[in-house]
């Protein structure tokens, strides 16, 4: 691995300072703002993990709720038996496995098959879990009692976010990341230069799914009572897609630009007009597709480019004079 360039070092220092500053939030507030921060951190991790796979491949994954629910359920089932960190590892392995199976079945084919398959995946897992629980255990719900509060969840999410960002950065530098960029630009070219396209996609999907599973596991203590309909809530999948697309999927940090405004907006709408949330999701989808096809980060880049063009044009004029 090559040494870090000066620019990368600067970004790293900035990121560490930023993380440290955000990590102090629980010291100032442990009510509304902390819980809002937990939501933002939650969706930041989910969307970034989602973008790891869906950004370069342009495959829209709606499996988030399935992986998330598996993570939550792992903790629900094992909290009395195993220590929490072990459960996090199991959650990662379990959802990674599911991602691998889904990937092997669908990622060799075109994107539509994948979307359709993931559309019902959360519902499928929910049915199977419910069936297993009603037939082989006593009762459907599970209690998760821990001494972890909101602030512990927040710190764990921050740590996970750091891991996701570093992983994403490492992937971008690796052969896999290079391969993904080629696949994203032109799959045919990628095939012709000898990239195993399906394998690269499956690996990335597994990584992304595993992170989402861990997120679900971390969130389990917040729910306290875990049952299939709440753990495998399909709305999460759609929210993640909207936020990530709103931010943009071209850069590692881009989803954050969508997560912060949308989480706040969604929080406001769902507390004031609880019956209008699906309308909001619908309108947001339409607005993004028609007006912001490359997300906020794409918009910023376009603006920069326009300004850059003006700047260079002005310079050229000066030179002529």
């Amino acid at each position, binding site marked *: 691995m090559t040494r870090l360039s000066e620019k990368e070092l600067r970004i790293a220092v900035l990121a560490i300072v930023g993380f440290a500053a955000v990590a102090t939030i629980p010291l100032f507030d442990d009510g509304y703002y902390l819980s809002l921060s937990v939501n933002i951190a939650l969706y930041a991790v989910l969307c970034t993990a989602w973008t790891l796979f869906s950004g370069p491949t342009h495959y829209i994954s709606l499996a988030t709720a399935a992986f998330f629910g598996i993570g939550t359920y792992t903790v629900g089932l094992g909290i009395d038996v195993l220590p929490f960190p072990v459960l996090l590892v199991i959650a990662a392995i379990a959802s990674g496995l599911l991602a691998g199976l889904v990937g092997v079945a*669908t990622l060799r084919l075109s994107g539509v098959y994948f979307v359709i398959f993931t559309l019902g995946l959360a519902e499928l897992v929910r*049915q199977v879990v419910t069936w297993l629980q009603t037939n082989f255990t006593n009762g459907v719900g599970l209690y998760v009692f821990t001494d972890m509060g909101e602030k512990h969840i927040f710190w764990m999410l921050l740590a996970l976010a750091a891991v996701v960002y570093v992983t994403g950065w490492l992937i971008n530098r690796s052969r896999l990341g290079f391969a993904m960029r080629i696949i994203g630009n032109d799959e045919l070219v990628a095939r012709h230069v000898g990239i195993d396209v399906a394998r690269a996609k499956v690996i990335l999907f597994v990584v992304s799914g595993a992170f989402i599973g861990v997120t679900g596991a971390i969130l389990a203590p917040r729910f306290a009572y875990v049952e299939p309909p709440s753990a495998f809530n399909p709305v999460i999948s759609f929210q993640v897609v909207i936020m990530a697309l709103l931010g943009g999927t071209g850069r590692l940090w881009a989803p954050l630009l969508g997560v912060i405004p949308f989480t706040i907006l969604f929080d406001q709408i769902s507390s004031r007009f609880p019956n209008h949330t*699906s309308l909001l999701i619908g309108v947001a989808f339409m607005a993004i597709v028609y007006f912001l096809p490359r997300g906020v980060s794409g918009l910023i880049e376009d603006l920069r480019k326009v300004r850059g063009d003006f700047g260079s044009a002005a310079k050229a004029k000066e030179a002529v004079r």
Partner: protein
Amino acid sequence: MDILITGTVLGGTYALIALGLTLQYGVARIMNLANGENLVLACFCAFWLYSTASINPVLGIVLIAPGAFVLNWLIYDFAMKPLVNRAKNRGQLEVDSILATFGLMFIMQGVMLLVFGGGYYSYNFLSEPVQILGENYGLNRIVALIAAAVIALGLYVFLYRTRYGTAIRAVSVNPSSASLVAINVERASAFAFALGGALTAAAGALLSTFYTFNSSMGVIFTMKALIIVIMGGVGDVRGAVLAALLLGLTETAVASLIDPGLTLAATYTLFILVLLFRPQGIFGRQEA
């Protein structure tokens, strides 16, 4: 025997929804994920017509299907055409249309939730029993099945025996070649999209006579219809009907023999088998 008849009735309704979707996706190249909401909307319309004006739901199709035709034509014209014109290739149109119809799905669902609430609806129509081979079945189910068969047959005749139907099939094979032989591809796409919506709405009206429906169940039907379309092969009418019947029978068998909570697992098992062994569909040909 019970499984056979109930499964066929369910499969018949699935077939209509899937035919609607396969027209929209195969010809207009729009993966319409809001199609299930279209279906639910038709359920509510049939319910409303029956309970306020006591119009027979089967005859109500005469009102509902043209309504859905117009609605879907407008949707195509206003919402989908900009995406079609913008897309550089088929892949991009697919992604864009999936996202846009997600939006549409949530908007329709949201509006229906506001108007009708989240409760379950059903009404009594022809619920007297009829005897077939010594067992009792609801007359409404049998009527629905016959109506579905008539509609599907009508579609088949239209697509394979008329001039415009042939033109639509030509667009589904290759839009750019179709325009070379003087077919107005844009209009044929819009027509196919609208016709697909009308078929789905007809399915909804029939479904509402024997099925308990609510505002948020559309997505499950969309998903099943999509799976049927993939199983039958995109744009293939015979394949879609066969796959729909297969799915209806499998679901009913699993629900009555194993557990009603596992119908989706049965659907997915079928789906995975198709993806692994015949991803081009039951009757589909291998793509070059």
